[in-house]
């Protein structure tokens, strides 16, 4: 083997790596919250909402779930300007992640809503609550709780998928790794270290979501 491994020099690129980590975290924080919010709205429409809106949401969900995130990102960043909508790379990255997670979490949350025992809807109705009041106060939180593991997995998947935003020059962790690699040609160290950081972020994210779940959901669901 003619290659000599060294990791010490990486320290001089510490600022880029830290910036990359922060951008990656920021992307999934915003993307996660807004994506799940969008997904909740879409899930409500598909499960309980007005009939005219259902095909619109269905088309959106099927389109996002059947095309690569990279292409969605390119379409938003490169394609939308020709419609007059110019976005900077971070905004485009955020938007792409929100739109992407929105579609996936829609299907997950919809499954949660549809697994709600019918009696819950009937109890809400018999207490004179409107369908939306029943959804908001009775159905929503248990639905989210039911699907929290699946939702958490999806958030982690989207966080790992965010590495692709480096391709539109958003300065995330992958961008930092590429930057270092292009300057030093020390590909292996740069990529191994960033991969390890991603792994740590993924594990950390899972923990955070588990704790958040524990805070929001007070009781274990029996059904």
């Amino acid at each position: 083997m003619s290659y000599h491994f060294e990791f010490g020099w990486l320290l001089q690129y510490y600022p880029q790596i830290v910036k990359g980590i922060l951008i990656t975290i920021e992307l999934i924080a915003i993307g996660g919250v807004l994506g799940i919010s969008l997904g909740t709205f879409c899930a409500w429409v598909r499960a309980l909402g007005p009939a005219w809106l259902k095909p619109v949401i269905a088309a959106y969900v099927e389109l996002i779930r059947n095309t690569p995130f990279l292409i969605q990102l390119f379409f938003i960043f490169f394609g939308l300007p020709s419609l007059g909508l110019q976005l900077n790379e971070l905004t485009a990255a955020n938007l792409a992640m929100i739109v992407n997670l929105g579609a996936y979490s829609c299907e997950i949350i919809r499954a949660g809503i549809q697994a709600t025992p019918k009696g819950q809807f009937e109890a809400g109705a018999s207490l004179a609550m409107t369908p939306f009041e029943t959804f908001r106060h009775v159905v929503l939180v248990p639905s989210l709780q039911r699907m929290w593991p699946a939702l958490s997995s999806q958030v982690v998947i989207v966080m790992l998928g965010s590495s692709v935003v480096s391709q539109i020059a958003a300065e995330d962790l992958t961008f930092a790794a590429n930057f270092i690699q292009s300057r030093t040609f020390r590909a292996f160290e740069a990529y191994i270290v960033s991969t390890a950081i991603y792994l740590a972020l993924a594990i950390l994210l899972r923990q955070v979501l588990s704790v958040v779940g524990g805070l929001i959901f007070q009781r274990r669901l029996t059904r």
Partner: protein
Amino acid sequence: MIEFTVWDILRNLLLATRWTILLSLVSFIGGGAVGLMLLFLRISKRKSLRAFAKYYIELFQGTPLLMQLFIAFFGLGLFGVDVPAWLAAGLALIFWTAAFLAEIWRGCVESVAKGQWEASASLGMGWLQQMRYVILPQALKVAVPPTVGFSVQVVKGTALTSIIGFVELSKAGTVVTNATFQPFTVYGFVALIYFTLCWPLSKSSQILERKLNVAHRNH
């Protein structure tokens, strides 16, 4: 400036789509083979084998596919091995697919009732025979919908290989966009072609899932 017709654009994209399809098939089949081996390790009686499989899966599921591609392409090259883009792409996707398929299949095997293991054991079958004649056939039925569902992820995963220079549909999209300055149209078509490839697979997975649940309910 050269004027490009819609057909020019579409033709280039469709030609590149062949490589997307080929890479998807190679990754899925190769990943399935490696995944099967990984499955056996993951449910093996030997703790060390189980641990190896477990960490392998956690590694490949817990890191970005793009990073795996970079390491395969740039990283291996530094060992003096000249890695062409298609090889790096294929290898990375095979190992990535294997991890996910192994996990999906493990879930399916574990969903086979414990009583099946006990019954076949009490009939004197060894572990391999139990797997081959009793467990896998039952797990197979449950495994079809999610496996077909994952094939969609594989097709979408091939898009990332464009970043390490493999010429498939996404790469063609970038090249054509740079030539025509019509990103809206070009990436629009690219999305449409991916949709045409993926949507039938997604729908099949849903239909198979529904049929399976109907079968379960009739037990």
